[in-house]
């Protein structure tokens, strides 16, 4: 028996716990528990009123059973009764039971509130503390504010209680005159009170810095007193010879809510403090214990954070850097890890960047020798952060060689980093091309689309490197086994610039073609499609291989390929090569124009991947210790750009432009003014979310039917106007208006005959392009005369964002990896809603497929759930989207979760889809 439990122990409880511990099997344990539960239940229900001690004992037993992992469905009332006991031990158990077991939305809350109110009013500090502790855990309990003229320990609890309330429901505790009084708690004699108050003030200051500015001078003064004190001065608060380490850390953290003090005297006092802390790090340790060095270094690291946050004192920055440099070689893994982490942020300061760079060899060594993967990861981060033109080649080479053995979990990130550094610091673009090809060779599976798109963009935009790129990919493709990503890059580059190396007989057109085609059959469909486009480009570049390529295109495996995309390309390219004159071929297959320069898509991807507060980024604002990361968040979401027009884009241009011939083009935006007053019909709109065909509008006179098809960012809609009467419609006209023309764009509408005979149906074609993500749907305005009256009809056309989905198949692993990457709070939208239709698995499947995403089997561990993935194509961007639908048949509810790289897209898709079930 432990020493403390003498005298006050609950014997029955101890016996019960021993019994449980002696149980040989799980079954025996359950049996013993059930027996006890029955016993307690009968005691609670019995006629005899229980005394406080028994009640306490039984409630405590219930608590123990709950903590073992069993459900408890009674005893709450008895626990609440304990609150009104006069005895501390009974009250304490009551409060403990409540804070562990009772949810904030329980019906008991009112009773509990009463108990708490009574205790707060009791003037008994022990009881007041119990009540305050409980409030801090059961979160929603309304505001009960405590005045500060009580005992110290109550002040401590009150401060933190207030903090908790401020976090959970800030409107319950409006700022008021008490704020000024709180700041003065920093002067309190009791360091425990100061510790608690500093936490409160830091949180409040993050929300409204101006209201708490006065805390700066008080915090500096307090800190100064602590760091200059002899180690025995603070007695209780000295921990292994370090004066009040936790309080110092908190004060330094509070100061990080503000810029350096403007007042010169205050500023120099703070600088003195920081210098003292740095000096102490150089003094011989007062104890050999790790506790001593940890406590001392906790303060030191926080001081360095503040120095970096201020970023204004070059000498301090350099000293900090030197100090961290020492830690890089320390025998404690913890310190090496923290030094690497902290140095990452130092690297982005102009004052200390050079000083950080001097440690490059140590960091590279860490990459090679550290046993803990998280330390190696910090080393990679630091190398990335310290990279500039002078050391880029060395760092990239080191990262590449590390990549060969790197842990799988961090490979993709290293690939992105290498790609970014190579691009950012490339003076010589041949080096860049070599680096990326190496990257594909070493870690092809981890090279994402963004990376290989980017190398193509750069090669296309820089004509000085095109010949070299063609030569290099040609050589790389010679390898018997090369990664599919290399085939993609190779196909694209040779298709564009193969002519630059065709002079050499070793890389003559035919050799190039044969080389590419030898990989063809090993590749996936998208790569093959790309290669087919490369072939047609070859026909333009090298007329001498035309016959060979036509032969290939003509073969059954192409012309009758089961994949419709490949088949279509083969047919069209073959036809094009046969009928088009050389001039037309040369125009259609012209070299790709340079890409507009925007932020690198890879950089955007890395930012997404690393998430806020976690990225030592070259250009990015440095991490704010207090967790304010909104600013970096914003740049992330707005910058998702994918710059590549893939080969299939020109395929689509080929068919869409001629059909929307110039004579048919109607300016759809010119005469919408007269129609403004008509009510827009949208009752059938939701039915079209998951399907493309059907009747969108019908009244006694007219029926409007739709058939539509979409491919990537383009769509075509056939509108059928059916005259249901036996009389002619005269002056029939229709037009389409888009509220947001910049976003979804009706390219053209074909004209309609102004007269529709009775019982007849006419057709109109709309060509649609999605420019970027949008919410508002276009409106179709129809006007005609029937029996002398003018009819105006306006119908919302079902052009929704999800129509531009392209389904994406992926493995479970890929799915979760991407799911993780899209983890920022605003990228996710979740909705829980009641089922409006019977919950049928097959129907749900059909709807999700109709919505446009691929339905992924066996991805979700729960087979009841539906998981889907797709990419929304718009002219400007592509937005990847993952969704998960969890039906709960018992409750007749669904939970729908969507994650995309854009918050507006997540929201829109969620709104659309959640209406469907």
């Amino acid at each position, binding site marked *: 028996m432990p020493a*403390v439990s003498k005298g006050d122990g609950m014997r029955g409880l101890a016996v019960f716990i021993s019994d449980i511990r002696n149980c040989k099997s799980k079954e025996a344990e359950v049996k013993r528990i059930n027996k006890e539960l029955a016993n307690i239940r009968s005691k609670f229900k019995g006629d005899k009123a229980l005394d406080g001690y028994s009640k306490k004992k039984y409630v405590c037993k219930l608590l123990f059973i709950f903590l073992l992992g069993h459900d408890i469905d009674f005893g709450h009332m008895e626990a609440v009764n304990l609150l009104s006991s006069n005895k501390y031990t009974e009250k304490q158990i009551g409060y403990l039971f409540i804070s562990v077991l009772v949810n904030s939305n329980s019906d008991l809350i009112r009773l509990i509130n009463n108990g708490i109110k009574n205790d707060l009013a009791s003037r008994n500090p022990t009881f007041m503390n119990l009540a305050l502790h409980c409030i801090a855990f059961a979160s929603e309990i309304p505001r009960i504010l405590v005045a500060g003229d009580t005992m110290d320990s109550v002040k401590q609890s009150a401060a933190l209680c207030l903090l908790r309330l401020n976090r959970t429901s800030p409107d319950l505790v409006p700022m008021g005159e008490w704020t000024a009084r709180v700041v003065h708690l920093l002067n309190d004699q009791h360091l425990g009170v100061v510790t608690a108050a500093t936490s409160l003030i830091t949180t409040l200051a993050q929300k409204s810095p101006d209201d708490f500015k006065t805390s700066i001078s008080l915090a500096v003064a307090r800190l100064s007193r602590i760091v200059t004190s002899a180690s025995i001065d603070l007695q209780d608060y000295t921990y292994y010879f370090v004066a009040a380490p936790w309080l110092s850390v908190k004060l330094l953290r509070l100061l990080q809510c503000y810029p350096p003090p403007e007042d010169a005297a205050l500023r120099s006092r703070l600088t003195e403090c920081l210098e003292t802390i740095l000096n102490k790090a150089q003094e011989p340790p007062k104890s050999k214990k790790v506790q001593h060095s940890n406590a001392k270094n906790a303060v030191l690291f926080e001081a360095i954070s503040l120095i970096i946050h201020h970023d204004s004192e070059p000498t301090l920055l350099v000293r900090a850097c030197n100090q961290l440099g020492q830690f890089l070689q320390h025998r404690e893994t913890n310190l090496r890890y923290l030094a690497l982490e902290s140095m990452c942020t130092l690297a982005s300061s102009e004052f200390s960047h050079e000083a950080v760079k001097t440690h490059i060899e140590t960091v590279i060594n860490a990459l090679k020798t550290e046993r803990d993967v998280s330390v190696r990861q910090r080393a990679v981060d630091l190398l990335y952060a310290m990279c500039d033109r002078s050391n880029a080649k060395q760092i990239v080479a080191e990262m590449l060689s590390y990549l060969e053995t790197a842990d799988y979990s*961090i490979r993709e990130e290293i690939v992105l980093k290498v790609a970014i550094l190579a691009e950012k610091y490339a003076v010589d673009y041949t080096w860049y091309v070599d680096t990326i090809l190496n990257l594909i060779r070493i870690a092809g599976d981890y090279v994402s689309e963004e990376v290989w798109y980017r190398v193509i963009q750069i090669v296309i935009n820089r004509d000085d490197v095109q010949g070299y790129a063609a030569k290099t990919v040609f050589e790389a493709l010679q390898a018997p086994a090369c990664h599919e990503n290399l085939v993609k890059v190779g196909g694209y580059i040779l298709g564009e610039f193969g002519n630059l190396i065709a002079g050499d007989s070793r890389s003559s057109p035919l050799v190039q073609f044969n080389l590419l085609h030898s990989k063809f059959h090993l590749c996936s469909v998208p790569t093959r499609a790309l290669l087919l486009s490369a072939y047609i480009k070859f026909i333009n570049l090298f007329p001498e291989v035309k016959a060979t390529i036509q032969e290939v295109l003509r073969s059954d495996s192409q012309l009758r390929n089961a994949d419709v995309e490949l088949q279509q390309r083969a047919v069209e390219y073959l036809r094009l090569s046969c009928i088009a004159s050389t001039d037309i071929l040369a125009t259609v297959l012209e070299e790709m124009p340079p890409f507009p320069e925007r932020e690198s898509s890879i950089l955007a991807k890395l930012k997404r991947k690393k998430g806020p507060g976690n990225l030592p980024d070259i250009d990015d604002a440095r991490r704010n210790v207090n967790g304010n990361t909104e600013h970096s968040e914003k740049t992330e979401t707005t910058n998702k750009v994918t710059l590549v027009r893939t080969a299939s884009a020109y395929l689509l241009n080929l068919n869409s432009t001629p059909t929307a011939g110039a004579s048919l083009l109607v300016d759809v935006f010119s005469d919408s003014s007269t129609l403004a007053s008509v009510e827009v019909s949208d009752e059938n709109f939701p039915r079209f979310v998951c399907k493309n065909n059907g009747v969108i509008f019908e009244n006694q006179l007219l029926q409007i039917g739709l058939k539509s098809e979409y491919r990537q960012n383009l769509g075509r809609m056939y509108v059928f106007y059916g005259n249901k009467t036996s009389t002619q419609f005269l002056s029939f006209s229709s037009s389409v208006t888009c509220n947001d023309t910049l976003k979804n764009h009706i390219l053209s509408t074909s004209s309609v005959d102004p007269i529709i005979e009775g019982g007849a149906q006419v057709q109109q074609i709309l060509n649609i392009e999605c420019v970027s993500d949008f919410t508002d749907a276009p409106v179709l305005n129809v006007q005609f005369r029937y029996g002398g009256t003018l009819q105006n009809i306006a119908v919302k056309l079902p052009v929704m964002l999800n129509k531009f989905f392209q389904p994406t198949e992926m493995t479970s692993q890929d799915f979760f990896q991407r799911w993780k990457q899209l*983890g920022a709070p605003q990228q996710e939208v979740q909705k829980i809603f009641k089922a409006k239709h019977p919950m049928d698995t097959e129907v749900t499947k059909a709807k999700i497929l109709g919505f446009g995403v691929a339905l992924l089997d066996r991805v979700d561990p729960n087979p009841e759930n539906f998981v889907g993935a797709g990419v929304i194509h718009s002219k400007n961007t592509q937005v990847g989207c993952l969704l998960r639908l969890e039906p709960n048949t018992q409750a007749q509810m669904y939970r729908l979760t969507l994650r995309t790289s854009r918050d507006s897209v997540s929201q829109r898709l969620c709104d659309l889809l959640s209406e469907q079930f």
Partner: protein
Amino acid sequence: MIRFILIQNRAGKTRLAKWYMQFDDDEKQKLIEEVHAVVTVRDAKHTNFVEVWDQLVSYALSVLFPQFRNFKIIYRRYAGLYFCICVDVTDNNLAYLEGIHNFVEVLNEYFHNVCELDLVFNFYKVYTVVDEMFLAGEIRETSQTKVLKQLLMLQSLE
């Protein structure tokens, strides 16, 4: 801010769980298992810090809790017991690492050479110790003398 405090033994039995943010019971169970899986595989050559996001063995947790990319676990092993504190990624690692030790020293003093059994039989008292030292996810009191004095005072109450 502290998200939760966990004390587990090597077999993964929970000896104390104190939560400072809302989780439902399933989530708590999941977290307890994951934390156990993550910390028990680490040895003395590893740091005492786990950025859950980087290290997690299973994807399940990260799918359940996207906010975890901003959390880390700071842990320390005492004989067969792991003391784990989950905090924000920007929090001061060493301060919480020593926070754990400070807590353990108080337990040791209070129970006169604490052992795992003390935590089992006196679980309701361990909660009191936690409440004296940590509150609302923040450090409340760091002075061992003051905490022990308060605990003894409470002990004397009936």
